């Protein structure tokens, strides 16, 4: 009934699997070369044809494009159909009764070993059966009129390994789908001492209200002796209806989980001094001379340079050049207003120039870019104050807030994939058969074994058993 269905035939083809896997491999390259999720202006540099291609094929977010998800869907159907098809054929091999043993399948093999023995059949069974039993504990002795068969097998279930791997892939894809439909990924910037329940969803500008509030009690940074950052720590309190329900310090790699919501330490920044104590300071304008701080990721050193709009400055340590392109009175990040900012271009010594936005109120903002150098603008002040000691600086913490109900499925998929790969690569279904034929006063003994994988190690095992048989 399945053979008449052309769609079924299309999907049981392993050619399709190979084509799909290679298509996924090749198309995935696009998204690693073409920057993803930039604003439309960014892609104008790719020319009119490029722009149309990018728009039609969703190349600006290709891993979520209809055609890429379509390839994944095809792969999923292909896996399911192939597995069902194969299980129909080999299912009886896995679950069928062991009784339909066909000794001729073993005797007829080219690598079967034979010997003649004068002892009577019962004596032979007595001496050979323990040898087989040593490797194949469940072995059985089957007697027919003039033939005795000692048959052992193991690892029959290892034929399931492939299906375990395929099931794991399905779990991963389904888990991913569940996460994208019922989960979210968002961001919160929270000054010390403040409370919020609003999460900004990545990439959409939408916001979401949690049914509890997050308060940042304190943010702190500790450093190694050489100045490199050792730890970012946010002390958080979760509140429900104004009453604290949970208090925890989070650091990178040690998030807070509460009612299915995960809160991660993601970034931080210093609140600009005028926000703290002198809010009356005049806003800087386009003609101002700015103090730029360059923080080198490699050495942990900070350098200060002065620059005006349109003047390029060299960054120490050979980290490239930086040009302030414009002063913007109002900017936003994922829909959240950032206030005035400088827009600039960072040109590293090697590699492509990068567009950089430096909000004047959030000097730590550029660290989120994770580049080799983080740039901060220190606005001009009437009298340059001495650097504030750390404990007097007020910070804001950047928290990643996520919910993903698909994670359980994905983790189950991970576990099954490792188990399945191991089983299908390293375990095999092994069968061994000793056939004792009565032949005019002598007994002809044939030993042979079959394995569905790792045939070489099966041959070694047969040699061992045969060696022991001839010794007896």
């Amino acid at each position, binding site marked *: 009934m399945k053979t008449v269905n052309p769609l079924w035939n299309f999907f049981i083809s392993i050619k399709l699997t190979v084509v799909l*896997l290679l298509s996924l491999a090749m198309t995935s390259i696009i998204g690693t070369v073409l920057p*993803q999720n930039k604003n439309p202006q960014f892609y104008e540099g790719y020319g009119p044809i490029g722009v149309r291609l990018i728009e039609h094929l969703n190349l600006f977010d290709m891993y979520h494009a209809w055609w890429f998800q379509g390839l994944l869907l095809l792969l999923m159907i292909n896996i399911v159909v192939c597995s069902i098809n194969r299980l129909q054929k080999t299912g009886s091999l896995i679950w069928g009764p062991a009784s339909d043993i066909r000794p001729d399948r073993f005797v007829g093999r080219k690598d079967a070993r034979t010997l003649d023995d004068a002892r009577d059949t019962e004596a032979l069974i007595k001496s050979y059966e323990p040898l087989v039993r040593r490797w194949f504990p469940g072995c059985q002795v089957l007697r027919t009129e003039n033939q005795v068969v000692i048959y052992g097998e193991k690892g029959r279930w290892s034929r399931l390994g492939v299906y375990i791997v395929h099931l794991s892939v399905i779990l991963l894809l389904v888990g991913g789908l569940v996460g994208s439909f019922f989960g979210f990924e968002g961001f919160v910037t929270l000054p010390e001492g403040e409370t919020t329940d609003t999460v900004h969803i*990545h990439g959409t500008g939408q916001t979401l209200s949690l049914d509890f509030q997050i308060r940042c009690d304190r943010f702190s940074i500790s450093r190694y002796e050489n100045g490199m950052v050792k730890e970012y720590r946010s002390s958080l309190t979760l509140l429900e209806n104004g009453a604290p329900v949970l208090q925890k310090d989070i650091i*990178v*790699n040690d998030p807070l989980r509460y009612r299915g919501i995960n809160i991660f330490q993601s970034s931080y920044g210093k609140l600009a001094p005028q926000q703290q104590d002198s809010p009356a300071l005049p806003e800087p304008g386009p003609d101002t001379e700015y103090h730029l701080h360059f923080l080198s990721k490699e050495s942990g050193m900070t350098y200060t340079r002065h620059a005006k709009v349109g003047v390029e400055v060299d960054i120490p340590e050979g980290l490239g050049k930086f040009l302030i392109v414009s002063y913007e009175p109002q900017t936003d990040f994922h829909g959240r207003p950032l206030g005035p900012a400088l827009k600039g271009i960072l040109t590293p010594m090697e590699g492509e120039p990068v567009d950089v936005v430096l909000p004047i109120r959030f000097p730590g903002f550029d660290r989120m870019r994770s580049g080799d150098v983080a740039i901060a603008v220190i606005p001009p002040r009437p009298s340059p104050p001495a650097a504030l000691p750390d404990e007097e600086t007020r910070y804001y913490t950047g928290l990643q807030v996520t919910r993903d109900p698909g994670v359980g499925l994905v983790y189950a998929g991970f576990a099954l994939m490792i188990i399945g790969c191991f089983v299908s690569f390293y375990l095999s279904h092994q069968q061994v058969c000793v056939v004792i034929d009565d032949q005019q006063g002598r007994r002809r003994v044939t030993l042979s074994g079959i394995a569905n994988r790792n045939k070489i190690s099966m041959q070694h095992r047969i040699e061992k058993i045969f060696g022991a048989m001839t010794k007896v």
Partner: protein
Amino acid sequence: MSSLNSSLLLSVSTFVFGLAALLYISALIFKKISLTQPARWIMVGAVLTTTAGVILRWVESYEMGIGHAPLSNLYESLVFFAWTAGVIYVGVEYKYKNPIIGAFATPIAFLAMAYASLSPNISDRIQPLVPALKSNWLIAHVVTCFLGYAAFAIAFGLSLMFLIRSTNPEKQDGILGHIPELDTLDELTHRMVLFGFLFLTAGIITGAIWANSAWGTYWSWDPKETWSLITWFIYATLLHARLMRGWQGKKIAWLSIVGFAAVLFTYFGVNLLPGLHSYGKA
């Protein structure tokens, strides 16, 4: 004690790896199989020196008060890659008793060590861990990934041998004659790919779990992640083509070479891509 430090030991082991590779290659070119005898022991020596160097580096980091496993930057990962490739190769030679494979496998370990030691862009200073790397997953992730990479590297060497040998499979003398039979090479390549695939899978998975515990997403299509998946797709293709369509020989050898190119790109090439961390709408 002060004169013997891990940098010195690892520099020495670079040269020991080089010497072993040189002997293996000479054995092949000058048809002197006897040269592989000392080469084997020198290779074992190189692996042991590297082991000592890595352990000493680990100890030194604790003495500096910033103790962590030496798996935290490019230098340390290259050294670990060379070590893993060396260990796997010694195991293969011990099991399959075919020393000529060394001429194709040991240079890979040597090149990794030499690149780590000599490249001016790679710092061998022991540095403290940045907050993002402070996790128990660091060791599991790096070790599984590099076991995979190293196995694929050896599979690549074997595939090269296969292609060279297959130009004249009947020839029994000369350089070609010393290369193992095609069937042996094909089988060995397959075994290496299986091993590599298992560990690449484990590496991607440990990475995903780590990402989920550090950033809240197990997969974000970042270039490194994507390239490791591309590599996974290529080797998955190889396994399916071989098991289900009975592909063997040259086609598999070429797929294994393409797969290793993807491994190299995952490891080094990703750094050459334009900066992809974006602000979104700025």
